[in-house]
């Protein structure tokens, strides 16, 4: 396998469901990852957490098995199921040994298509989520993230809300909300399933077609909203205090751009240089390496189907918060003032093109890559084209993209400190 030569199989079923696959002959296992284009973007503000609860309930009982039966069945064969709910996607991930492919596919189908949402299980799942929310609301990083979202996005914007909901909203979610969310937004024409591992793709696809082929969606799939987000006006800052903590956590940023925006690659590479490459780019070099202020300090561009944020994050001693924020802003100003150096650009380009074989080594990595290609409509030749896209970027394009989408004068700043 060379970087660009990942052999990808793709098949569309008549009901609109898409199958993608890559065979890894060396593997004794297989990953089956179903991506459903639905998520927290559909949550009502007062019932935030609906999609997250729906995701957790998928495994809590199906038309074929109760929760206990499903656990016994999967645990008996070492089959692992996990569900990740995002804003625009809900991923159901099944991992099994190749000898258990049939079981794995059956489990995937019943969990995605046929959950029964038993009410006693909802109360268990809700209790677990409520405990997790209590933990998050006393965790400095989580509270910094929540506060940042509230400062960076306007009142009614879905990106302001937490995917997992809140202690105030999760109790309001009713069983009927979950059933309705599933009935309305889980449908074959918004599903892609990636298969990666030591199985024959024709065989796996035939079995998947058998399990998913008769699934019918009524009418049109609901459109996935992705409303634009205005940039913050001036500096929107807030400090929150939590008891019993040693360290402060800081998030500084603003709404960013869609993964499909023409500036995405330029902005992504600029961010790589600013806060990721090497030991977290220029921000890491300044905040950690030069000043010794923080164990972690980096920046990230979320991408995704909407205006996910660009944000820098750091964990620092409470006495050093201002210095760390100033250092992050200095580095942000730096990349917006003049082009990055030719060496920085070339290092970033070599990293992104060179690291592909590592990203595609594991079945998980392959499955995620295939689903990204599908979600963002990148085309099956994407991995072949990708090095060319990256190498064509210029320093001036990076600077222009940075100036269009980032600002060192208008941003949201969330600080969570130990209570004094």
């Amino acid at each position: 396998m060379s970087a660009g030569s990942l052999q990808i199989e793709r098949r569309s079923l008549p009901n609109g469901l898409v199958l993608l696959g890559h065979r890894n002959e060396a593997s004794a296992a297989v990953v089956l990852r179903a991506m459903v284009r639905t998520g927290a973007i559909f949550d009502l503000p007062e019932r935030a957490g609906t999609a997250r609860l729906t995701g957790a309930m998928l495994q809590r009982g199906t038309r074929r098995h109760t929760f206990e039966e499903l656990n016994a069945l999967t645990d008996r064969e070492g089959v692992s199921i996990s569900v990740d709910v995002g804003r625009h996607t809900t991923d159901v991930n099944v991992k099994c040994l190749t000898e258990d492919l049939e079981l794995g596919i059956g489990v995937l189908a019943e969990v995605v298509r046929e959950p029964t949402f038993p009410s006693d299980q909802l109360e268990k799942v809700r209790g677990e989520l409520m405990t997790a929310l209590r933990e998050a609301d006393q965790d400095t990083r989580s509270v910094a993230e929540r506060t940042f979202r509230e400062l960076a996005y306007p009142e009614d914007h879905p990106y302001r809300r937490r995917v997992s909901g809140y202690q105030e909203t999760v109790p309001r979610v009713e069983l009927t909300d979950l059933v309705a969310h599933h009935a309305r937004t889980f449908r074959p024409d918004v599903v892609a399933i990636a298969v990666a591992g030591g199985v024959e793709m024709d065989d796996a696809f035939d079995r998947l077609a058998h399990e998913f082929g008769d699934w019918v969606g009524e009418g049109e799939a609901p459109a996935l909203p992705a409303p634009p987000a205005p940039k913050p006006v001036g500096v929107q800052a807030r400090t929150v205090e939590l008891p019993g903590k040693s360290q402060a956590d800081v998030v500084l940023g603003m709404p960013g751009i869609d993964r499909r925006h023409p500036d995405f690659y330029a902005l992504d590479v600029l961010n790589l240089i600013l806060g990721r490459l090497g030991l977290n780019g220029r921000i890491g070099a300044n905040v950690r390496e030069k000043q010794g202020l923080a164990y972690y300090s980096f920046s990230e561009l979320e991408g995704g189907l909407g205006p996910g944020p660009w944000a820098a994050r750091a964990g620092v001693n409470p006495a050093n918060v201002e210095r760390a924020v100033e250092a992050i802003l200095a580095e942000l100003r730096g990349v917006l003032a003049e082009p990055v150096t030719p060496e920085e650009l070339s290092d970033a380009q070599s990293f992104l093109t060179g690291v592909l074989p590592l990203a595609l080594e594991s079945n998980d990595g392959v499955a995620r890559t295939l689903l990204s290609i599908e979600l963002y409509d990148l085309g099956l030749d994407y991995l072949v084209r990708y090095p060319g896209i990256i190498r064509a970027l210029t320093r001036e394009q990076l600077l222009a993209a940075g100036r269009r989408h980032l600002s060192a004068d208008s941003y949201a700043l969330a600080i969570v400190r130990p209570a004094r």
Partner: protein
Amino acid sequence: MDVRETKLPNGLTVLTRELHHAPVATFWVWYAVGARNELPGLTGVSHWVEHMLFKGTEQFRPGDIFRLVTKNGGTLNGFTWIDYTTYFETLPSDRIDLALRIESDRMANAVFDPEEVASERTVIISEREGHENEPTWRLDEELTAVAFKAHPYGNPVIGWKSDLRTMTRDDLYRHYRRYYAPGNAVAVAVGDFATDHLLEQVEARFGGIPAVETPPPPVRAVEPEQEAERRLTMRRPAPTRYLQVAYHAPAASDPDAVPMLVLDAILSGAKSMGMMGGRAPMGRSSRLYRALVDAGLATSARSSVGLTRDPFLMDVSVTLRPGVALSDAERVLFEVIDDLKANGPTDEELARAKKQARAQFSYGTETVTSNGYWLGALSIVASWRLFGELVPRMEAVTAEDVRRVAARYLTEANRTVGWLEPSEAQR
């Protein structure tokens, strides 16, 4: 397992394994030094030395190592544990010599510039303070300290804060010179290469590093058998109650170590063995999940046991649902354990645990990086041969073996029980 073991004249052990599923290779150097080798006043020294090995050597200025590896399309890291300190690079296989260059240079030539030491002091204290923000980390640190009264395994790998404030550049450098010697290290290469050629490269890069005549001092401390249950209650701001119970457990080289892994899988499912995101949760039919989580007492209940050079701990961590009393969760946990001690697992449970272990092994060893990790870690704590033997040995474990190790190790006198009670206002 097709692993080749080679010893260089200077004492360096080299393990190689060819894997050709992808054009990548990983290179690790493992040093047999960690928290178990640390003395009072110098806890955290191994971990700090690890940080300093990214901060400049003869050939590489601070920052160069990260920059060079990433620009070559690689990933890298270093980490420190109770038994070892290790460094790795995973790269496109045609560039693996870069990793050999880096690791051979920093085995002998790290500079420990005083200014870099000073700036790293605050970075490491920040790393520790980030952990301190998590109530469960604090409970674990306290519990581990109480569980050991003689062996250094009771000290946190990151070190006590007072030691981090006072440790000097010379303390760090002395530790480096004493333990970073070819004879105290194992190099591991896994991936898409030809072994003979790779060994020539290793010989060229590492062969000139002189052997160290004085071997590092042995760890003589032996934890005496625990004779009475130990208990602690921590009261501090926390979102809910947490319970953690730790039992002294056998070393990796002990014949009981493998049955303990099966016992762990029966208690809460076989654990992921992956590095770099190979997680594969399972175990919702397990005893702890059913008795504590499914019964509504807890939101999570997990056992864990590691493979360690000296006897360390098997522990169970429980996150309680708000409103549930610690005494109730504890009673249920001990009922589960007592039943296993009396009756052992059912045949079906045993079969399930073994299949899970086989599956986790397969999921967790897909990548060259993960293979490098396991070969190296096991070579330090017992023998790299355990890597290939792990699943067959687990498959040979009987229900009676599981009952026997449960009855031997999961006793009242052998346990330390930790409660974390949220401060008054937060219950």
